[in-house]
């Protein structure tokens, strides 16, 4: 049985851990509220944008355009969105698992990372990395998304990469967040749309080229922006629930240790009393 002093020391150490997890939970809660409002406001737009434009692009596969041509069998350009910090439950790991389990061999990938956690993992596992934009996830701006889409599109255009994917975490509600991977270019399927009319003649005004020039970057930017906001909300949600669970566990341990400590203390007192009584009986 552990000594009273050990028990006391352990209890104190867990108490200070609890304080930290509690503070982190509060911070995550506040950040979550902010991130969540933004994510929910933009969701209809980005979702609509994704569906509309990918349906248009799918319907106009035959148009030759610099962003639509199938560019060889080069690498897959993947934008991986993780967090910059840990202590968020399985949040970062789930995103990374989505990447490693997506079926594309490691040699055929070039990963553009947002979030230090994902980058560190990929670095130590010898993945080919593109530019890093880790600072973006703290406060995602539309400007950042435009910049990211420009980088990806120019790599796509120059055939350094032959497809563009994005892996992010979809924020369903405070406790449910699911990692998702979507292919932005070339468009092969549209999520949430069972069947696509295989022959959808689309007219463009003024002409194919200028319309596609305009809407493809807009589409990329808004889908990426939506993904950033969803991920930011999910990260804070995941951290909030992880820290909530940690605080609960700490409390439970503190209760347990207090009980043990009090028992040990009572035991010591009883023993002392027995010894005194036994001693006085022996004298008389």
């Amino acid at each position, binding site marked *: 049985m552990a000594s009273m002093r050990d028990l006391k020391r352990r209890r104190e150490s867990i108490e200070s851990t609890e304080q930290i997890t509690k503070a982190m939970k509060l911070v995550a809660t506040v950040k979550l509220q902010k991130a969540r409002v933004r994510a929910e*406001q933009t969701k*209809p737009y*980005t979702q*609509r944008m994704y569906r509309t434009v990918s349906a248009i692009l799918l319907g106009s596969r035959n148009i030759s355009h610099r962003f639509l041509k199938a560019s060889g069998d080069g690498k897959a350009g993947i934008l991986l969105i993780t967090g910059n910090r840990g202590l968020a439950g399985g949040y970062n790991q789930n995103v990374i698992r989505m990447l490693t389990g997506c079926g594309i061999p490691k040699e055929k990938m070039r990963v553009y990372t947002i979030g230090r956690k994902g980058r560190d993992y990929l670095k130590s596992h010898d993945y080919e990395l593109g530019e890093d934009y880790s600072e973006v996830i703290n406060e995602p701006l539309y400007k950042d998304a435009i910049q990211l889409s420009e980088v990806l599109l120019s790599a796509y255009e120059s055939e350094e990469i032959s497809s563009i994917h994005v892996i992010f975490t979809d924020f369903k509600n405070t406790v449910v967040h699911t990692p998702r991977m979507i292919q932005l270019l070339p468009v092969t399927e549209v999520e949430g749309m069972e069947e696509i009319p295989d022959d959808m003649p*689309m007219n463009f*005004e*003024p002409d194919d080229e200028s319309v596609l020039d305009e*809407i493809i970057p*807009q589409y990329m930017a*808004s889908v990426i922006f939506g993904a950033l906001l969803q991920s930011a909300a999910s990260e804070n949600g995941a951290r909030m629930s992880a820290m909530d669970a940690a605080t609960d566990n700490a409390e439970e341990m503190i209760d347990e240790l207090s009980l043990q400590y009090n028992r040990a203390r009572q035991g010591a007192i009883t023993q002392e009393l027995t010894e005194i009584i036994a001693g006085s009986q022996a004298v008389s």
Partner: protein
Amino acid sequence: MDELFELKIITPERVFYEGKVSYTSFTTMEGEVGIYAGHEPMTMLLYPGVLSIHEESGVKKAALHAGFVEVTPESVNVLAQIAEWPEEIDRNRAEEARIRAERALREDGSTLREEMALRKAIARIEAAK
């Protein structure tokens, strides 16, 4: 009564409008365009201008700047970057913006940015009338 079709206008901040309409018109790069139900599929780029929505119960107006429109026979989807109802428009500010843009255009010739600013200001003033 004309045939109705689905009109949806979405901006990054909100779902601006959603409903059944019989006719809608807006400004594209090619000029003003009016759409009835059963229109040929088409994708057009928006230019700053006045949007009018003809519902069964009346006509609504709004200012619409930048974005694009997807037309199918059954529906029209507008993905705008900015859209404003007349009551959200500050007419004085729009008027000032128009004067400023006109002055800038007179002074250092026509640049795309100023021209767009002028078009936006005019669209706002027209919509707020």
